[in-house]
């Protein structure tokens, strides 16, 4: 399925604990499980074509 469309759909709906699973329909079982388990890092790795992400864009200044 088109994941961009699915995330767009999720972002455009009021999601609560008692209706979220309905909106997850269409995702494959593995992705659905990751959503329910809250394992977003694994989900992100599954969606991406690589394993490295720009998660930090700040660093300590040692010298001016």
């Amino acid at each position, binding site marked *: 399925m088109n*994941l*961009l469309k699915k*995330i*767009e759909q*999720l*972002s455009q709906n009021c*999601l609560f604990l008692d209706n*979220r699973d309905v*909106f*997850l329909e269409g995702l494959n079982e593995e992705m659905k499980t990751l*959503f329910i388990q*809250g394992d*977003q*890092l694994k*989900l*992100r790795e599954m*969606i*991406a*074509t690589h394993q*490295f*992400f*720009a*998660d*930090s*864009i*700040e*660093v*300590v*200044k*040692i010298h001016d």
Partner: protein
Amino acid sequence: MIERKKLVLIGSGIKTLSHLTEEAKTYIQHADVVLYLVNEPILEQYLQKQNANTISLEPYYFQYQNRSNAYNKIAQLILSQTAVNQFVAVVLYGHPTVFAMPGLMAIKQAEQDGIETLIIPGISAEDCLFADLGIDPGNPGHLSIEATEFLLKKRNIDVNSHVIIWQIAMLGSLTHTPCKDVSKILALFQEKLLNFYEPEHNVTLYEASIYPGMMPKITTFSLKDIATISFSRLTTLYFPPKSNAPIDQEIYQILGLQENRI
């Protein structure tokens, strides 16, 4: 009349697509080129769909082992695009000036170069933390600091405030990879924190949700156990206030506040 060039720095928010504002979308759609550094592949797809001319900054991010060099290179690249485009947009995830160096570096230089600049705010990880943990940063105040900044430099913590420590997974590292001897570094970090807090003081490990419908990760443990906890690159630490700050009785009297008590 020659129109001034434009550089717009845009925050995409943390939760993919959900946090992207109408204002941000408008600038993304109308820019001559959209440069982006995001940490989520669906958002990247979305940006490519919104504007036909996009450039990922990610290759430059990973080109240099030293993060400081990478951020300088990214800032230079942004500026080089303003030389060949009238309207450049740069999308960074979260808030584009909160724990996000390269965008602001480019903006400051662009202003000196006479380019019109604009910053479109986004929802930061800290904003998500305030919401998910039910915290008012104004009551009684808060301190937000990068983990290595706290460990490396002679910094104080106001224990009467909410304290947020960022980038714990990169503690002691100036590169893209965490320190090899993490337990040793964490022990130093813990030792420094114990100058301010009791070993039993609660610490919350927090990871904002990056997908709509997904719950944030919230785990609470004692400071004495911090060396046994594993952190992801999205983890932020939260320390609740230790106690209420005592009132300065002299100022209290001068202000006459005792007379206003109901």
